[in-house]
């Protein structure tokens, strides 16, 4: 077929890309082939804009068992076990159909994990929405939360943490990033590669329907009015089917019958066949008429491109087919043989015996286009980075600021959300959501894993390099606050349209920032996901890299939580405040501004801080730990008091740089990095301070736990003196209050 401009546009292919297809094939592609190229060369599958940048990420380390390139990364956690984890976005589908979009996002990442032979044991999610004042946003928000809950709860994997932030830029383009972690035997990790000519290729799971056709190309195009037409590209999740698939696949994997296995995610059968073939250096020949179909009259094009959920592709060793089929039958699943592995390196697709596509698999994967997109510093930057605090007028009284920050949805308790998630199923959850990084024990060992996802997009907006570094530092610090040594990370990069040089610049800078921070902190990146074209009507979201960090706790009985543990404990502040307000929650909530430069980050100091936390918690010295993030030291102190009934009093030094009218608010609410509030038994406070001094970490005894008020003095002068009960009420009720009068519909 000779493709018209219109056809190419519908397939998201440029004329140049089409030209390359012609050269690769040496002929015109068939319709099915055009469809296959279109999804495999989409941004979503090919990473054509991001690949050159992602190569810079540090991906190796002594613990890395599997870096980027497979369905998920894996790190060694001792005892012969591996932690297998990854984060993935499902942004666009979640806007169109919040419940199903989020639910299938959860389903997709879970498949990535068990595809590796790992049993999934924990989920986290990072969410971004517009302001909750907007009824449409509320509907999206509650739908997404219900969707995550609906899928995760049903399949029985606990959601143990996450984070949520709000900004106008996400109103028409929410972000739904889901992280999943599983445990596998280190030497039994299964790869998604096809090999061994003559081995059978099996299809198992849900039947194929017309759903999600062009889902992958949709995820690679901006939203506009016309995208309403693409709407049927929404898939419905079936967590029950996935639970059966999960159990059946893990059972099959215990036998040594498999050569390789891959889930059918974006671009469905096309992607799984092309990638498995290409990874194994083999070819795959299938007949799509053998694929179980839910609808009648489906064309090969539709079958190859369908994104129906809950489907897997397996390559089975010759002679072991019956064994595999029997296990699936037990779970009421019917594994169907649809083809076999070949030696010619080609993806050969037949339909009732007729060849409908015949493409060298590498053309679809390794040889897909790669772009070095132009980059240019955005015009907004110079202006946005200028922050003249004196121009803001006199700040409101600290008590008012404090209350407004506690009620700000970004800071307020997320209990309304995580109460809907089963966070305890599997009886591994040692630290539940709301108490810091999620911590799950690894049964049959003494170890536990601390997990956190973080990313402050305002910082990235104001300085993508620095902001991305801060995201790495925060996620790792959260894990360290629980007692986990950061040993691996995954990332989800949510950005706007890469064809705009300024977006590409943000992207490039952010990747550099992640690389620099990960190198300095010794945390390898083992995988991740890129979501581009996050914009609506030409307006991009805040550049939002989300980092997911895995921390190893050697002794599961030695962990720390956010909340103070004992009345009378001594409060120690680790790190130093510089009164930095650039990009802060304070500026956003009180002045409606996203401005200034993000906080300074001293990476060696950050690394020392994290080592101190891990050592101090392992030694049983640190009894609670909570890092200072949004809302600064005042909000962090309050969060340490919540859920305990214990108030606290601390005294912090005046920050010289922040003199003048803003002195108090910058000291209380400034968001300087690398600070943690910890509590210790009074008799051991000196020991901690000594340990900190030895580690080169600034540490000051600032106060004590007790009473029923939250009190902060600055240089002995009272700056804040609030009732704990009132503060806690404001903080706990803020998000629910948006929904009290309109409970969601099931």
């Amino acid at each position: 077929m000779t493709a018209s401009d219109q056809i190419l546009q519908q397939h998201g292919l440029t004329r140049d890309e089409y030209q390359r297809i012609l050269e690769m094939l040496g002929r015109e592609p068939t319709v099915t082939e055009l469809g296959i190229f279109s999804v495999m060369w989409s941004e979503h599958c090919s990473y054509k804009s991001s690949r050159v940048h992602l190569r810079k990420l540090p991906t190796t380390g002594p613990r890395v068992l599997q870096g980027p390139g497979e369905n998920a990364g894996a790190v060694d956690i001792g005892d012969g076990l591996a932690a297998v984890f990854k984060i993935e976005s499902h942004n666009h589908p979640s806007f169109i159909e919040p419940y199903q979009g989020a639910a299938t996002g959860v389903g997709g990442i879970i498949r990535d994990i068990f595809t590796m032979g790992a049993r999934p044991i924990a989920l986290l999610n990072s969410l971004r929405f517009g302001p909750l004042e907007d009824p449409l946003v509320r509907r999206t928000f509650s739908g997404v939360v219900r969707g995550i809950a609906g899928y995760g709860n049903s399949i029985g994997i606990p959601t143990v943490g996450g984070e949520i932030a709000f900004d106008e830029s996400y109103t028409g383009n929410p972000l739904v990033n889901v992280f999943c972690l599983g445990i596998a035997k280190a030497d039994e990790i299964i790869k998604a590669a096809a090999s061994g000519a003559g081995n059978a290729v099996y299809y198992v799971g849900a039947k194929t329907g017309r759903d999600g056709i062009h889902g992958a190309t949709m995820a690679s195009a901006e939203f506009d009015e016309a995208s309403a037409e693409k709407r049927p590209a929404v898939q419905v999740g079936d967590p029950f089917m996935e639970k059966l698939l999960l159990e059946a696949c893990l059972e099959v994997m215990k036998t040594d019958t498999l050569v390789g296995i891959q889930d059918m995610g974006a671009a469905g059968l096309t992607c799984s066949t092309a990638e498995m073939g290409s990874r194994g250096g083999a070819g795959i020949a299938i007949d799509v008429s053998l694929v179980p179909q839910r609808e009648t009259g489906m064309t090969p094009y539709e079958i190859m491109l369908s994104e129906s959920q809950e489907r897997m592709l397996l390559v089975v060793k010759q002679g072991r087919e019956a064994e595999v089929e029997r296990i699936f039958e037990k779970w009421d699943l019917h594994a169907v043989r649809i083809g076999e592995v070949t030696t010619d390196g080609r993806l050969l697709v037949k339909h009732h015996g007729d060849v409908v596509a015949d493409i060298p698999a590498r053309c679809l994967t390794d040889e897909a286009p790669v772009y070095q997109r132009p980059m240019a510093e955005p015009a907004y930057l110079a202006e946005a980075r200028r922050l003249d605090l004196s121009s803001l007028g006199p700040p409101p009284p600290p008590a008012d600021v404090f209350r407004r920050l506690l009620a700000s949805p970004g800071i307020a308790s997320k209990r309304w959300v995580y109460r809907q998630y089963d966070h305890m199923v599997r009886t591994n959850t040692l630290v539940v959501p709301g108490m810091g990084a999620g911590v799950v024990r690894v049964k049959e060992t003494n170890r536990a894993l601390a997990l956190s996802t973080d990313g402050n997009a305002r910082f990235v907006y104001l300085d993508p390099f620095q902001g991305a570094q801060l995201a790495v530092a925060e996620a790792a610090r959260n894990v360290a606050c629980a007692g986990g040594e950061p040993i691996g990370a995954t990332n989800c990069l949510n950005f706007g349209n890469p064809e705009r040089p300024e977006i590409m610049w943000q992207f490039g800078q952010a990747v550099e920032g992640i690389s620099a921070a990960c190198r300095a902190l010794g945390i390898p990146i083992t995988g991740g996901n890129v979501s581009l074209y996050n914009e609506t009507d030409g307006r991009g979201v805040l550049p939002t890299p989300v980092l997911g960090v895995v921390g190893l706790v050697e002794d599961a009985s030695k962990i720390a939580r956010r909340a103070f543990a004992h009345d009378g404990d001594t409060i120690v502040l680790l790190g130093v405040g510089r009164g930095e307000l650039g990009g802060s929650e304070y500026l956003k909530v009180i002045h409606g501004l996203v401005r200034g430069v993000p906080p300074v980050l001293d990476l060696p100091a950050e690394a020392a801080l994290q080592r101190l936390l891990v050592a101090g918690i392992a030694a049983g010295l640190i009894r609670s730990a909570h890092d200072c993030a949004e809302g600064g030291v005042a909000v962090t102190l309050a969060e340490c008091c919540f859920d305990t009934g214990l108030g606290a009093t601390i005294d912090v030094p005046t920050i010289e740089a922040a003199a003048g009218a803003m002195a108090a608010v910058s000291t209380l609410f400034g968001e300087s990095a690398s600070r943690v509030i910890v509590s210790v038994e009074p008799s051991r406070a000196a020991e901690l301070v000594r340990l900190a001094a030895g580690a080169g970490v600034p540490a000051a005894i600032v106060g004590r736990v007790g009473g029923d008020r939250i009190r902060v003095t600055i240089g002995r002068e009272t700056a804040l003196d609030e009732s704990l009960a009132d503060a806690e009420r404001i903080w706990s009720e803020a998000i629910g209050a948006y929904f009290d009068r309109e409970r969601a519909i099931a």
Partner: protein
Amino acid sequence: MRARVFVMLKPSVFDPQGTTVADALHTLGYASVTAVRQGKYFELDIDAKTEDEARRIASEAADKLLANPVIESYRIDIEKTEAAKR
């Protein structure tokens, strides 16, 4: 007046619930039930003067709240007298 609103997944959209119910019916021996689709059913009591007004309100409710047009379609029946029955 009572509006009865049926919300169904569009025919092309996968219905895991209906499929599971069909499987269960087959296991119970009802092989003659060849397909099942499951939807939602709402009865709205509406304080409206005319049938048209009731229908207008019901379809606004369906558009805004009861159905998601991306994956679902709906149908509305108005029963003038039904309301009294209960």
